[in-house]
């Protein structure tokens, strides 16, 4: 298990655990994400990926263990209103659930203004400019901003959620299945954008997904989770190239098999 020693900067997760009643969703997870790095988490359904993501984003409380972001403990950071605002400016999450990630009562623009006003302290006009900029980058038609979430397709909604997370230019971006609802073409476009964002702004990405090719494309390092624990971790190329854990081996094997079947055809 590779626990990279880092100084204060970055996200450091130590012995993290989360129980739901009798279910240990996350048993014990320790890893770190250095600033500007892109780390992927893969693993089968129910292995605790989303739970880890939500804890780091400050939406769920750990049962055990600690999370430090830039040296500050997550718990103390979230205990005051100011601390919370500061934390959210730094860490953003793109959630797995695309159907209800926007309040159905507001138009997309209304929802997108909120982070700008609350976290960025911008005026309405400043918000609108920023929103339109980002929409352009994500190739979102500006007219869609005036719609309500129910009037959008799943893929469009997911792109809006990405826009909302990127709006305040967070230093740490947690993406939980951010591209799963998109078809391959749109998926490619979004992945390109996220990668560019990370390099341009020296932002760290924590990329949770069960799609290996996408993860392989975007990440430098890879964590494989299995039943609430880290089964394997390391540089992405290394993990995918020479997997040691049986689960990882099977996962990679399945892809390799398919691809070889194709090139064989």
């Amino acid at each position, binding site marked *: 298990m590779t626990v990279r020693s880092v100084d204060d900067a970055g996200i450091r997760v130590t012995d993290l655990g989360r129980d739901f009643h009798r279910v240990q969703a996350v048993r014990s997870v320790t890893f770190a994400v250095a600033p500007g790095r892109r780390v992927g988490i893969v693993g089968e359904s129910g292995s605790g990926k989303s739970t880890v993501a*939500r804890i780091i*984003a*400050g*939406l769920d409380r750990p049962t055990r263990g600690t999370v430090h972001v830039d040296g500050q403990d997550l718990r103390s950071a979230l205990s005051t*209103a100011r601390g*919370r*605002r500061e934390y*959210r*400016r730094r860490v*953003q*999450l793109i*959630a797995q*659930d695309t*159907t*209800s*990630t*926007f*309040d*159905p*009562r507001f138009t997309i623009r209304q*929802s997108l203004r*909120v*982070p700008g006003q*609350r*976290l960025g302290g911008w005026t309405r006009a400043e918000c609108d400019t920023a929103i339109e900029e980002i929409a352009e980058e994500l190739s979102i038609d500006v007219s869609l901003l005036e719609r309500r979430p129910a009037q959008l397709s799943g893929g469009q909604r997911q792109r809006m*959620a990405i826009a*909302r*997370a990127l709006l305040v230019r967070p230093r740490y971006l947690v993406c939980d299945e951010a591209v799963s609802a998109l078809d391959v073409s749109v998926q490619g476009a979004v992945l390109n954008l996220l990668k560019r964002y990370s390099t341009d702004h020296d932002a760290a990405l924590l990329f949770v997904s069960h799609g290996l090719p996408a993860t392989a494309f975007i990440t430098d390092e890879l964590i494989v989770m299995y039943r609430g624990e880290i089964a394997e971790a390391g540089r992405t190329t290394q993990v995918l190239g020479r997997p040691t854990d049986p689960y990882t081996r099977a996962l990679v094997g399945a892809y390799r098999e398919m691809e070889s079947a194709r090139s064989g055809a």
Partner: protein
Amino acid sequence: MAAAIAGADLDTVIPRRRTRRLSPRASLVLHCVPLGIVLVLTFIGPLLAPFDPTRVVGTSSQPPSAEWWFGTDSMGLDVFSRVVAAFALNIPMALAITVIATGLGMIIGLIAGMYESRGGPIGLVARILTRAVDLVQAIPVMIAGLVLVSFFGRNPVVIVLSLALVLVPFQARLMRTEVLKTRSDAYVDAARLAGESEAEIVFRHVLPNSSRSTIENTSAIFAMGIIFCAALGFLGVGVPVPAPEWGSMLANGATDAVVGRWWPFLFPAVALGLSVWAASVFVAGVTRSRS
């Protein structure tokens, strides 16, 4: 939960025939008409009464005639005057019950749903509220109303407050269930991430998105308000005579009705039924137009 006495709108179950479909706006207007008439009667009802509804105007127990359109009751009061004048008392009472029960129920349901599983004082308050709601609901509305009204006196304010209190659990439970669902919706988390404060989350997101079934249920609360008021009158603890009020009219008229003098009973019953119907039509219209 099944606290949804009214629950969802039955119109979704069977689509109206498509051939005669109105535009949504026209249909909303149409749904407002009955309640509109009821509200107009609330204001002008007493003016429509040809006689003073509290004064003896003639011989008692006269059947409907040209002079007394709905006949006279056992005291010689004019039934028509009383039925229309009673709008001014019954409807505001039912509305007040509805507003108080729904308002309190929403607040309690909101607090309970949001904070029940939290620690600290707010969690404690939420759990106490939940328990209180359970306790109030352990006594049937009718019996609780009977006891409360006999405690505190038979005046409209007491009746309204007592009935509102015992109807709160119906709304609070509905609200709580919805809040429990809503608070785990992804947009609540998204709002947190966007830096909204707890109060903003509760009032901008959770409350509006959880209130649908509670609002739909207001027509049932309204109906129960009117009916329980009347039932209290029936048991002899309602608004005292001779104030024009359907419940006491029904109570007095019941004794006449079983021996065949139907008019002091039938007309207030019809007024009551129509008002309940008007309210449910209105709420159905509003909820349908919102969805």
